[in-house]
Every structure is written in structure tokens, then in C-alpha cells.
């Protein structure tokens, strides 16, 4: 057998390399889909914890998910590790975008040196992965996630499943590394057919025939599957149950020598703490896959002005299978999440960044439904840029994102007065008793009880006043229809107006003189 040619030390090293390569691969892929730019520092002196001599941070939740999927096994021949990236819209539609596959085939390279050549080539392969993850179409989509859709990931082990990518998916090979027990290959299959995005999301017509219909089936929690959001951030200081120090036995090889490694494996490298804006404005619905309490999935709420009302329903107990995470604790309500001012200069985008889910362990069985007002997903009236003429793979989608920015209430606030927003948010969370049910687009009537200025004597109190003037009608001159119709009339009436002004020119001159 192939293994007998390998010394026990080499076999042990190789298994360790493959294991950590798989974990780092998952980290690189998920971090590339977080929607933010990644930046790590070069260190001239090795710390002993940077596998493959690359500074790749370890997000604990991602490592946990990867280890769970691997369940103590290693990628091998016939046992592939796959990371599936998908997109889920605010309406609940989801679509697989790409699947990254770490596979092994039977072609062995017996002569290769494990501790040196294989290690360096795995490092090179990770660098290639860093480069390629920015090049596939899902990267641009992930950078724009937040308001209307989120990017989710799922790790699975076993056979590669590519059927969810639609017809005509493309494959790009990241690279291969030969080892004495087989050749490791890393590749990505990505969807090219995003047609449903342009029809389903914006025109709300029936899905195009040929698209996999089950993407649109609204199974309760079912269409989440085992998806995790790519923009999830665990609290920076909270070790939780994912303490990486359990791998303290595993020291990464930064020294190509017989001398012992300099340092034990460190559990984590620090990464950015979550950034929040305005507790009262922010809502974060969490839906839980009832079949598997570990699958806490967090979606982006709609921050800011249109508000939102997180609802909390009673906590359900954990299933017995996850006995080691036996504690059941409830997620704190949204309005207790501390307000952290946004520190980034990226403006509107930052508002939809990370969520801090305090103290959520995998067994926090919490169901929060999310109700929001219409505003964020209003169909843009009038012209829509047709991009069929542009020869781009995601042409149908790209200008939509641009359109969405115009519709984005964060960029262009709605007519209601801006100062009402924090007040509105907190008042809504106080008076949010009645509304419930699943996420809807319809305007939800909430009994508005202002905390002050309520005068029983007068027929009009602050609340009534506020309600009446919250959505004043558009100014006539700003209405599109009126303006397009009257444009011609305006032009026609110009000569008459000019004649009148010329006639009264003496009056105007006298007026100007009084000003001087």
C-alpha cells in the first residue's frame, strides 16, 4: 500500500498538514465572502501559530463548523470537503452561487518530501486560493451584501454536489499538490446563470422555467439547510465553546529543521470587533433550524430609518444529541444590544455590516421573526436600466445593485423626518406587542403610543399629529408624472412669462435699488 512507504513521522505530519490545510481553506473562502476587505500583517519572526507561513485569521465559528463537517476525518480519496456559498434574499429566496471542492485523487507522488515540499506547495495553493476567491463572480456579490441579500456558507464532507449551480456552471481549478498518499486538488464550480435575480427580485413574476424550483419553496427554516451567514461575527472576547486551544498539541511547522518548534499554538489571532450602529435602529432576526439547534443563522436586519421589529418567542429546549452544549439561554432582546458608533468611513455600507449576537452558543434556541416596513424593497418606478446588451456574466444583476443604491433608504432617506428615526425605533420596540408572524412586505400597523405629550383634552395629540404628518404627500412639483407632463407646457409658457417680466422691468429695477 502507498502508506507503507511513508515513515510514521511523515504520515503524521502529512495528516496534520492536510487537516490544517482544509481548515485554512475554509477560513479563506468564508472570509472572502464576508463582504469586507481582508487585511493581515506580515511578521518577520514566526509566531508558531501561522500555518503555512501565511497570516490567515481563524474565525472560531468557521473552524467549528469545518471540524464538525469533517467529524474527525480528513479529506481523502472519495471524501471531499466542500464549501458551498449561496445567496439568500430578504424575501427568502436562495440560490447557490459556488461550491469550492477540496478533493484527493489516487495519483501519488512517492518521492516528494512531506515536511518541506508538500508544506510549501500547500502554502502556495493557499495563496492561489486567496487570489482566486477575489476573481469569481460571487466576490462582487458578497461585497455588496447587506440590504437585500446575504451570503451564506455551508460546509459538507463526502460527495461533491453541483446540481444546485444551475446549467452552464463554470469550473476554475485553483491548483494541485501531489503527496505520497494522493494528489490534493482544489477547485471552484460557480454559477453563471443568475437570471432569476432579475426577474424574481425586481419584477416579481413567476420564476423562469428551468430554474430549480425548490429555491423558491418557503419551507420553514428548511431552505436555510445548514447555511451559515458569511457576515456572522462572534464577539471578540468571548471564547465560548470554540476554544482553539484544544489544538494545543498541534503546532504548525514554521521551522524546517530538527529543532523543536518555538511556541505552542495560539488559539486565535485578533480580528475586528463587530461594528454596530444605533441599538434602537438595529434589528437582527435569528431563525433557527428546528431540526438542528446548532444551525443558528443570523441575517442582516434592515438598519436605520425604516426600522424593524424583532419579535421573540419562547425558547425551546435543545435536542438531546447536542448534549455537550446543554445550556439553554435566551438571546438578549435587540434593544439591549449596545450602541457602538460606526467607526468606519464607509458610510452607508457600514450600517449593514456585522451583527453582534451576544452570548449565542450553538444551543441558543431562539426564534425571532422579523417584520419590517416596506421601503427597502420598493420596486423602482419608471426606467430600469436594461443590461441585456452588455456582455457580462452577471449583467442582469450588476446594475440592479446600482439601482438598489438609489432606492436604498440609507442613501436617500424617505420623506419622513430624519429626527424621528431613533425615537421611532425605540417607540416601536415598546409598542410592539401585537404584530407578529413571518416577514412581510406589507406595512404593519402598530399602535403608536408616544411616551409623552399626550393631551386628553385636545382632539389632536402628539401621536395623532405624528401619524398624520409622518408621510406627507409628495410635492406636486416633484411628482414625476406631473413634471413630465408639464415640462412641455412649461416650455410653451416661457415666452409669455418672459414678455410679462419685460413689461414689468421697471418695477424689478426699483426693487433691486431698494436692496442696495
Amino acid at each position, binding site marked *: 500500500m502507498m502508506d507503507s512507504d511513508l515513515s510514521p513521522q511523515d504520515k503524521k505530519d502529512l495528516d496534520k498538514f492536510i487537516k490544517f490545510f482544509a481548515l485554512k481553506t475554509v477560513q479563506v473562502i468564508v472570509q472572502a465572502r464576508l463582504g469586507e*476587505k*481582508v*487585511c*493581515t*500583517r*506580515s*511578521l*518577520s*519572526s*514566526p*509566531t508558531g501559530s*501561522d500555518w503555512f*507561513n*501565511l*497570516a490567515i485569521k481563524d474565525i472560531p465559528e468557521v473552524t467549528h463548523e469545518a471540524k464538525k463537517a469533517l467529524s474527525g476525518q480528513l479529506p481523502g480519496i472519495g471524501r471531499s470537503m466542500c464549501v458551498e456559498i449561496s445567496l439568500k434574499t430578504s424575501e427568502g429566496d436562495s440560490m447557490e452561487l459556488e461550491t469550492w471542492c477540496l478533493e484527493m485523487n489516487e495519483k501519488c507522488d512517492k518521492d516528494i518530501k512531506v515536511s*518541506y515540499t508538500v508544506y510549501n*506547495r500547500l502554502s*502556495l*495553493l493557499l*495563496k*492561489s486560493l*486567496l*487570489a*482566486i476567491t*477575489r*476573481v*469569481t463572480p460571487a*466576490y*462582487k456579490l458578497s*461585497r455588496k451584501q447587506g440590504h437585500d441579500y446575504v451570503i451564506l456558507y455551508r460546509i459538507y464532507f463526502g460527495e461533491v454536489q453541483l446540481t444546485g449551480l444551475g446549467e452552464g456552471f463554470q469550473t*476554475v*481549478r*485553483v*491548483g*494541485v*499538490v*501531489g503527496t505520497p498518499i494522493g494528489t490534493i486538488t482544489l477547485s471552484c464550480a460557480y454559477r453563471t446563470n443568475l437570471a432569476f435575480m432579475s426577474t424574481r427580485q425586481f419584477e416579481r413574476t413567476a420564476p423562469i422555467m428551468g430554474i430549480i424550483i425548490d429555491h423558491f419553496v418557503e419551507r420553514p427554516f428548511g431552505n436555510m439547510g445548514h447555511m451559515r451567514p458569511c457576515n456572522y461575527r462572534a464577539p471578540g472576547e468571548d471564547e465560548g465553546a470554540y476554544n482553539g486551544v484544544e489544538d494545543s498539541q498541534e503546532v504548525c511547522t*514554521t*521551522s*524546517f*529543521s*530538527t*529543532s523543536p518548534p*518555538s511556541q505552542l499554538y495560539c488559539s486565535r489571532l485578533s480580528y475586528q470587533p463587530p461594528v454596530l450602529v444605533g441599538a434602537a435602529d438595529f434589528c437582527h432576526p435569528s431563525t433557527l433550524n428546528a431540526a438542528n439547534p446548532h444551525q443558528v443563522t443570523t441575517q442582516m436586519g434592515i438598519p436605520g430609518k425604516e426600522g424593524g421589529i424583532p419579535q421573540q418567542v419562547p425558547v425551546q429546549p435543545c435536542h438531546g444529541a447536542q448534549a455537550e452544549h446543554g445550556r439553554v439561554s435566551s438571546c438578549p432582546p435587540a434593544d439591549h444590544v449596545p450602541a457602538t458608533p460606526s467607526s468606519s468611513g464607509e458610510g452607508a455600507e457600514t450600517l449593514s455590516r456585522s451583527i453582534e449576537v451576544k452570548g449565542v452558543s450553538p444551543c441558543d434556541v431562539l426564534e425571532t421573526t422579523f417584520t419590517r416596513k416596506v421601503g427597502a424593497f420598493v420596486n423602482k418606478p419608471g426606467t430600469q436600466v436594461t443590461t441585456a446588451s*452588455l*456582455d*457580462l*456574466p452577471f449583467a442582469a444583476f*450588476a446594475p440592479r445593485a446600482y439601482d438598489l443604491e438609489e432606492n436604498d433608504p440609507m442613501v436617500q432617506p424617505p420623506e419622513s423626518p430624519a429626527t424621528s428615526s431613533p425615537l421611532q425605533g425605540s417607540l416601536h420596540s415598546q409598542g410592539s406587542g401585537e404584530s407578529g408572524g413571518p416577514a412581510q412586505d406589507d406595512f404593519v400597523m402598530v399602535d403608536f403610543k408616544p411616551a409623552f405629550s399626550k393631551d386628553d383634552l385636545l382632539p389632536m395629540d402628539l401621536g395623532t399629529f405624528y401619524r398624520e404628518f409622518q408621510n406627507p404627500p409628495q410635492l406636486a412639483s416633484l411628482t414625476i408624472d406631473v413634471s413630465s407632463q408639464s415640462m412641455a407646457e412649461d416650455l410653451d409658457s416661457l415666452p409669455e412669462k418672459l414678455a410679462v417680466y419685460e413689461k414689468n422691468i421697471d418695477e424689478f429695477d426699483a426693487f433691486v435699488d431698494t436692496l442696495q
Partner: protein
Amino acid sequence: MNCRSEALEVSVEGRQVDEAMLALLHTILLHRSTGKFHYKKEGTYSIGTVGTQDIDCDFIDFSFVRVSSDELDRAIRKAVGEFKDAMGNGMDGMGQISLEFYQKKKSRWPFSDECIPWEVWSIKVNVVNLANEQERQICREKVGEKLGEKVINIVEVINRHEYLPKMPTQSEVDNVFDTSLKDVQPYLYKITFQITDTLGTSVSTTMRRLIKDTLAL
């Protein structure tokens, strides 16, 4: 030893030249840089850590990853800046920028060290002028896609795992790697360029370099 030679070609608008070149050169250097070597007793060494960062282009719909090293970035930008200046502004033109990885071979006095290239990347650049904003917008996206394809090509070549210089001993490390940077250690490289003017004649720095090399011998 045969030198491996790879050619890439891109067509860009004038203001995209810098970013397109940076994107491709940094992608190559990402793969051709390691952490700093620290030699210990008994001829063993440990390797420092290479950090990476995402860079978004302003004039192209494209993002790329480069090594986190300001020194390296400055050196590449300087070379690209010189190339851009040589290409001129606002004119259609063609040029070629080459990134060459080499090893130094010590020679006896009075001969100077030989530079033996083992991998050369030649990026041909075709500069176009566009008439209006709509064309520029389309160009932004198209060039972004093209650069993506080039990155895939680069990765494909790199992952063939063909010749790489042997890891050197401490005394030889400067013959293989550029050890002048404080945070990373790329293989020894040099960037040269040549410009073809619109008439197609070659006004090149290559000639100058040839003469210089001949005289140096």
C-alpha cells in the same frame, strides 16, 4: 537551465494602466514571496509570516490580493509609475512590462555576478482611448473580467510547480532572495519595460540594458 517565460496581454484605458499592472504584478509576487528566513544553528531555518491585504481598484471593477508589505508595494508602484510615464499620457500605444525572477551566480573577480533568470513574466499592454463615459463604464467592467482571467492564468502557471530555486543556505540566501525588505522576502526580481510607439518601432530600454550588461562583463 531553461528560463520559463510566460506572456500575458491586456488592453486598458490610459488611466487603468497603473492599477492593471499593479494587480498582475502583485498577484505574481504574492506567489513568489515568502516570509523572512531566520537561520539557526545546524543550518536550519524558520520562516516568517506573510500577511495579505485586499486592494480595490478605482478605475477598474476589480479587487486583488497583495502581500502586506509597504516596502514591496512602493517598489512595484515606482516601477509601474516609470512604465506609465514612458507610455505617455493620452496617447494610444503599446508597451510591455516584464517581471523577471533571477538567481545570482557568483563569479570570480574581475567578473561581476551573473544574473540568471529562471522565470519571466511579460505583460503586454495595449492602451486605448475612449470617447465617452458609457464606453468607459463598459471598459471598467470588461477590463475587470479580463484581469480576472489573467489571475487565473497566473495561478495555473504557478501551480504547475515547475522549477524553483533550491532553498539556499545562509551564505547563499542573497543569491536567491531579495533580503532587503524587512517584512517579506520575495525571490530576486527585476522589472523592466519597453515601449512601442504608435508607428510600431521599438524604442526600448532593453537595448540599453543589453549594452550595460555587455559592458559590465
